[in-house]
């Protein structure tokens, strides 16, 4: 079940990792970037330990790392980690 990364608007690159951080798929700006993938794994594993609610099983749905013009969006599905690098357009500015 391949995630159609080209359908994602403003997508600049993507990475698909397994549970242990091995790169399954990559493309765009993130193509073959194993070192970047390792750094993401660190961030994800720290973020997974943040308790979101009293129930221990509630983990994040979407993790965003935002800079001025671009951002990384991370999500987990079916024992795989999906990382997408997208252009960041502040949604409030779009409305103004």
């Amino acid at each position: 079940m391949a995630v159609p990364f080209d359908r994602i608007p403003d997508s600049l690159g993507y990475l698909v990792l397994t549970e242990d951080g091995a790169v399954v798929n990559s493309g765009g700006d993130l193509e073959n970037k194993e070192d970047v993938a390792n750094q993401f794994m660190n961030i994800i594993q720290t973020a997974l330990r943040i308790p979101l609610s009293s129930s221990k099983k509630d983990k994040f749905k979407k993790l965003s790392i935002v800079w001025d013009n671009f951002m990384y969006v991370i999500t987990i599905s079916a024992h795989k980690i999906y990382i997408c690098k997208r252009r960041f357009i502040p949604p409030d500015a779009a409305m103004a």
Partner: protein
Amino acid sequence: MANLWVSNNLQVFVSASIIETAKHNILLFPYMPQPALKMYIKTLYPIVKAMDADMFPDGGPSETDRLINPANGQGTPSSFRETQVVPAATVPQPGGGDEASVLTRILHTVNFIDVSAVEGRGLEQHEYHDKARQYSNKLNMVLASSGRGSKYRMSLPNGVTAPQIVLASQPVSLADIELITMAAKRAAAAVNDLKVEHKEDLVVPFGVP
């Protein structure tokens, strides 16, 4: 002292335990640097001495016998020529019929361990898979039973059903970003502001007469 032969063409490293058990065997040495050779000779010397006693029960030439008679400068009086232990840089040259006969005698009396003939036994595919499965099962059993094991397990949560929808969704609002940045800045400042208030000295001088 019996001869120690150093040959240049074997690539095998001999462990000390083999040397200890191999009292009646001769092992051929690989080319090795001098300090290692000296260490080997030290370990081997008692064994070689025992071999000497086996091979020459009536007491052959010992290490203290002179090689050259100082009075008349003749060659060695013994029946075979003593070959000194050669440093690793040179290969011992065959010195004549005596040495060849000694070599054949050694070859016939002593059992050789040919360490170069050992072949690696490769694992077959199905054996490899079976073993891998067995080990991972055992690991899982131990990990599951121990309470602390969960710290090392990289168990991912179940996550979302449709990742592309989540990834393509609206980015985080500016207000949220502002909130998080301010909170992180203030937390960092607070941690930096941690100070120790000195109340009492820990070390106090006592006036003992």
